[in-house]
């Protein structure tokens, strides 16, 4: 039996490759480290210079001021509800639509699919005003419905799932059809479990998009109790925060990124597998 040698292991070339990767990772991490260090520095110090972050003085004041904002937990909860709700619904709708496009035939399918994909070319700003007016007409602004529903039309999700379902061998489904399994049963029991890597990829992208969304929540959730974290954190910045409140800005960035970081820690294996297109054993 021949052992398979990992390309990165052993030998000078492998070590150099690892060193290069570590160096690149360190360079990539530098801005994040800078943000983290700056969040512990007094604002008046940062107003004068933003180097020398590793030397005193340090302060927790930026975090104290942030945590002292009474609506912070509410905004965090709003963001979690909107992001999780949006992600779950995008997964359901994109999977169903993708399966429909990949496996069923109906009149005008190519046109409908083309129409869905055309949505990728429409920028968010182009539909903002009609979308806003639509939700005014429905009297739904300042609700979770308004924050979640406009983002459910996800052309990328439909495209991703369609392509993934197309790659699954038809024979698996045909065997089930011979056993009199219904289309829905085949979808739920056979195809869906096999599409978990694609679901994970789409889930991650949907969640991150929803978590970082700013423009739509800004104009739809106008009551402070309905702000999402992005809008809420921006609202508490002073007018010239980029000069006089840099430490506070950085503390906000750390706080906003923390939930994503925690999610990553727990689901690291799945996320890496999703992005690399493999499955977790």
């Amino acid at each position: 039996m021949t052992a398979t040698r990992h390309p990165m292991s052993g030998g000078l070339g492998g070590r150099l490759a690892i060193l290069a990767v570590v160096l690149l990772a360190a360079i990539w991490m530098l801005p994040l480290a800078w943000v983290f260090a700056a969040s512990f520095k007094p604002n008046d110090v940062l107003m004068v210079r933003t180097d020398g972050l590793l030397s005193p003085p340090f302060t927790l004041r930026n975090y104290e001021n942030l945590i002292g904002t009474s609506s912070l937990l509410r905004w965090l909860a709003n963001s979690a509800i909107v992001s999780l709700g949006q992600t779950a619904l995008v997964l359901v709708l994109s999977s169903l639509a993708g399966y429909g496009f990949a496996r069923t035939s109906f009149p005008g399918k190519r046109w409908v699919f083309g129409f869905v994909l055309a949505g990728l070319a429409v920028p968010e700003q182009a539909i903002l005003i009609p979308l806003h007016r639509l939700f005014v007409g429905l009297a739904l602004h300042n609700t979770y419905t308004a924050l979640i529903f406009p983002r459910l039309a996800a052309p990328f999700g439909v495209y991703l799932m369609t392509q993934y379902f197309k790659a699954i061998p038809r024979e698996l489904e045909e065997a089930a059809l011979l056993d009199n399994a219904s289309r829905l049963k085949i979808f739920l029991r056979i195809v869906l479990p096999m599409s978990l890597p694609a679901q994970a990829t789409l889930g991650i992208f949907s969640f991150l998009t929803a978590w970082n969304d700013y423009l739509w929540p800004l104009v739809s959730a106008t009551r402070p109790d309905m702000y999402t974290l992005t809008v809420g954190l921006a609202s508490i910045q002073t007018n010239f925060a980029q000069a006089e409140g840099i430490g506070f800005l950085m503390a906000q960035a750390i706080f906003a990124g923390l939930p994503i970081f925690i999610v990553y820690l727990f689901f690291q294996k799945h996320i890496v597998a999703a992005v690399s297109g493999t499955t977790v054993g």
Partner: protein
Amino acid sequence: MSKIPCALGIIALGALGAVALAACGDKKTELSFTRFFGSCEAEYGKVTDVKQAHGECGIITSIANQFTATNPDHVVVKPQIVEWGPYYDQLSARIVSGDIPAVAVMHESALGDFVARNLVEPLDDGLKSIGISPAEFTDQARRGTVIGGKVYALPFDTWSWLWHINLNMMKKAELVNADGSPILPTTPDELITQAEKFKAATGKPYFAWPTVNDSAAAYRTFLTLVAQQGATVFPPGGKTVDVRSDAARRALELINRLYGEGHVKTGADYGAANQAFLGGEAGIVVVGTWTIDDFLNQSKQAGSPLAGGYTVVPFPPIFGKKAVFADGHSWVLLKGGTRDDRSRKAALGLLRALWDNDFEWSRTGHLPARRSVADSATYKALPFRANIAEITSTAYSVPSDVPRQRAVEVAVGEEVSSMYLTKKPIPEVQTAIEQRVGKLLVGAN
């Protein structure tokens, strides 16, 4: 039926009635108060003594707290704080969706658009009912809030374009008078000569102003230099822009020359320009009234390049006439924001409280909108306020009949910036401004 239970019944009924009456009397009126200036709840969430507060956020928060705590009508102010940048986008979205705030902050440069769209209530009668007369407004505040003979906003301040000066560096360049005050240029040639002398003595550029990711600085400086020649970029009527005048050309040439000859710190955005000034990398930073306190605090720190050597003056009259770009914050009642007499009275009460605290607000560095405050010895005793108080009458602001001023600022600022950053020829800059601004002005209602 015995008398005792009957008496108890009456007492109980009476008690219930009293509770009900008390409940009625305690009925609170919630007043939505939309603004930017940030949130500082951790530090000032419970502060009601405005005198103890500092900075824009601290002072405005404590004014609202104080009003809630002391007004006799049980009005509770509910701040709705929005980020400064997209504030007007959100406000417009709220108006469209019928979620209209009662009291909202508004730049005087934005007021004209909202008035033209019939979205703002005239305040003549309202202000009269709370004892405020427009005669008490400073000249500049009146220019900013009176449109077509009607008062549409309660002015809160005037903010303007200043030269913040590092006297230590100026001294090194021998650009200070015997009394320690800076020698200021009075002509374009003097300015260039001073800048050259400064650079030769210190090795640093004379100026810092935001040249990257910022269009406001170039716009404000350009309008200031044109106004100092007794001219204007916006002829009467608000439908045209004039950047072909000799005054406009001279202003563009001067800005171009300053940058081209290395007298302006390069590659600095807003934060970096201030940082360059505080770090002794430039002699003068051209920025607004709001940084006075921060710079003053830095000048009190030993070891700072600014230590003991900071002063601030209005943008000097390089072309002869005293004039400097200005704008202001004001408070408006939006139509539909107050739904009944009770809430309207509450909103006017808050306006009165804001007006009464105009001096406290002027501690931020902004100039007062209230003439009596601007003229007061107390105000002039604040650091450097005597230097800049003249701006309340010498300021130049874009006329309120010029629509879309914030978009106009971006268009003009970007073109002026590209002149000195990319060496775009001045005639091309003039053409680009005419085209971009022309579209904005003609396309507006």
